């Protein structure tokens, strides 16, 4: 590492004892680079086996990597924690301004221990750490308002990150998010609930450090090369223009778009909620994460009338992406854009993970239709596919929890189905609600085997699509090997930390060049070793906390609804899962 690189500094904050201190941990970054590689090592250090995810022993670890603050699209922070949603590995990535702020505040990682006895928020302003009273903010109905208050109260506008929870986090809904700035999130696996359990309402990080490079003359041309690739490459074009929402129509075409709780793979209203339609009629602004020229964040401008006042409107800016469109659109049978956008907005107001929320509501709708639950459980709401206003009311109740049923929903679809039935159509993998792809066996195996049970772990959907286009078939062992290889490489990318959208730009060669300028003279073998070891450690943590891939439930629904690349049977999937575990 370069001698004056602040990456080596880890900030420890103890909420119980209300103190903070810094430690020089070059050892961590020299071994793990940053991001995921460092995060898992800190999680091993900080989290005792069997810790209560909502108790004071569960740490919150936020880490960045050597490329952050130096190169474009190195714009993400990795959060590591024990997940209250799955009971094992919690890993969530967010951009916004979080990564640049953390790095330029002069740290490589922040570790938060313990719990507060009153609502507080933290301000990390370079070398200074402040504890602030958040009791007046606790319980505010909208996370937007919390953001506004903090923005006005704290200084550092431009390079600061405001991470906050909404009511969902306060109520410890196990899929509550931490919102970054607005529109970006530590979304999945319940970091928001962990914040809430510590009475940590928000974390504001600001900094304006300079960063050293190994070779001042070489820095500019190497940066230029990466910048040009990121802005000119056709690989990135889709994110510039329509954004990830461009996936809706192609997926729908091949019947891979989960619809009405995956009762089907195509949606008759897909065109209405497509990226093309949203761009043409609703797109109001595009914004970017810090140090990313791609600007993939698409904001829809939605006019909403006030029901009892004629000609009285408000205009809301609502962030949309493929996953929210799937979760609040096709998955819930909603083809009206205003209804769908208002559901996304409500998820943001409450601080709920929109993906898990959509899948939970889809299951609840089907359970209601089949009579497994009645209006007694739903507090009078008649859930129905396509009925956006009722879903908004249901979302609010997931947070307020007026009945035991909503309490159960607040812990995810796996938990709710265990109590009320309907596991066959509870779309969760390793207790984690399904992402928006039903392309074939590889995508579901990716959800099952991925350490985070995310489509981003190993992008199995991509393997299905390339296989289908070549007219080939996959064997269980073939899928397992391919997913393992991809997931190992992604550990490297999420240690740098780059946004996975730039994975085409950051090839091994580019990564090594950039790392050398950041003071890390690594080889391709070093990277491969980091990838394999990091994945192994993450899975060891899962196992330590009781996870067993062989025991994971496979929802029957994925075998019943045809996928573009057919999924043979459960035995096929289990064979691949065994092969994956053996290969680790």
């Amino acid at each position, binding site marked *: 590492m370069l001698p004056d690189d602040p990456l080596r500094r880890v900030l420890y904050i103890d909420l119980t004892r209300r103190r903070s201190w810094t430690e020089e941990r070059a050892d961590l970054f020299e071994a793990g680079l940053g991001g995921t590689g460092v995060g898992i090592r800190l999680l091993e250090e900080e989290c005792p086996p069997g810790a209560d995810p909502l108790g004071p022993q569960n740490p919150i670890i936020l880490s960045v990597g050597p490329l952050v603050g130096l190169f474009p699209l190195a714009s993400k922070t990795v959060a590591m924690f024990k997940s209250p949603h799955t009971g094992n590995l919690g890993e969530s990535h967010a951009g916004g301004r979080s990564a640049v702020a953390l790095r330029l505040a002069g740290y490589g990682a922040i570790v938060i221990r313990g719990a507060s006895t009153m609502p507080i928020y933290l301000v990390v302003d370079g070398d200074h750490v402040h504890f602030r009273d958040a009791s007046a903010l606790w319980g505010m109905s909208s996370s937007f308002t919390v953001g506004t208050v903090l923005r006005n109260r704290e200084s550092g506008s*431009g390079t600061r990150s405001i991470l906050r929870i909404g009511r969902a986090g306060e109520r410890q809904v196990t899929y509550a998010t931490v919102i970054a700035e607005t529109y970006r999130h530590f979304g999945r696996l319940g970091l928001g609930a962990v914040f809430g359990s510590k009475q940590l309402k928000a974390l504001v990080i600001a900094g304006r*450090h*300079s960063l050293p490079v190994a070779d*001042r003359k070489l820095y500019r041309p190497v940066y230029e090369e990466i910048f040009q690739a990121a802005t000119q490459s056709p690989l990135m074009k889709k994110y510039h223009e329509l954004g990830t929402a461009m996936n809706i129509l192609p997926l729908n075409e091949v019947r891979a778009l989960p619809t009405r709780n995956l009762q089907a793979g195509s949606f008759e209203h897909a065109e209405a909620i497509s990226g093309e339609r949203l761009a043409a009629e609703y797109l109001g*602004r595009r*914004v970017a994460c810090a140090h990313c020229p791609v600007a993939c964040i698409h904001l829809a401008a939605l006019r909403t009338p006030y029901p009892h006042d004629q000609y009285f409107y408000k205009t809301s800016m609502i962030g949309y992406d493929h996953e929210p469109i799937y979760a609040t659109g096709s998955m819930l049978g909603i083809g009206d854009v205003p209804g769908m956008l208002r559901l996304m907005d409500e998820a943001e107001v409450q601080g709920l993970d929109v993906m898990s929320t959509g899948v939970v509501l889809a299951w609840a709708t089907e359970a209601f239709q089949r009579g497994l639950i009645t209006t007694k459980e739903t507090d009078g709401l008649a859930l129905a596919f396509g009925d956006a206003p009722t879903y908004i009311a249901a979302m609010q109740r997931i947070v307020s929890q007026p009945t035991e049923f909503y309490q159960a929903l607040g812990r995810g679809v796996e938990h709710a189905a265990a109590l009320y039935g309907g596991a066959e159509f509870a779309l969760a993998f390793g207790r984690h609600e399904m992402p928006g792809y039903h392309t074939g066996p590889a995508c579901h195996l990716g959800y099952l085997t991925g350490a985070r049970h995310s489509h981003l772990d190993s992008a199995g959907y991509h393997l299905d699509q390339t296989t289908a286009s070549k007219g080939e078939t996959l064997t269980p062992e073939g899928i397992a090997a391919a997913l393992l290889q991809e997931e190992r490489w992604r550990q490297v990318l999420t240690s740098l930390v780059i946004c996975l959208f730039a994975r085409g730009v950051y090839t091994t060669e580019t990564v090594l060049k950039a790392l050398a300028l950041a003071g890390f003279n690594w080889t391709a073998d070093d990277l491969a070793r980091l990838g394999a070891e990091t994945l192994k450690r993450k899975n060891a943590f899962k196992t330590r906390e009781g996870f067993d891939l062989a025991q994971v439930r496979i929802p029957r629904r994925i075998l019943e609804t045809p996928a573009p690349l057919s999924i043979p049977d459960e035995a096929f999937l289990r064979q691949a899962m065994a092969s994956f575990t053996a290969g680790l």
Partner: protein
Amino acid sequence: MAKRLSVLDHERCVGCQSCMFACTRRLGEGGLASSCIWVHSAGGIRRGFVVVVCRACADPPCARVCPTDALHLREGGGVRLRPELCIACGNCVAACPFGAMLWNDETDKPQVCIYCGYCAPYCPYDVIALEEL
């Protein structure tokens, strides 16, 4: 003829900060301590962004209040800061109504755009350009 860094249309700004990082890279460093261009939200990201950079005023208020003549008038408009004459009193920072006289927390001195235009090509959305005054 004198040039300055013009903000052509702040509504096109996506807040990527590529210009800010370009400015420090001009000196061969990473991070943002030395940046002379600053982008921040106009009251939350949903409201868009504001680009703050020296406008190269014909009659600069910052130079008028400098007690040590560290801010020389540049021919055609704008100023040149001489850090060796600067006592870091902060008058110039207070005098600029745009906040374009920025502060370097590491050197504890003000810093301002030198109208070099290195940042402009790094804006993917034509928000800024080096223009003749």
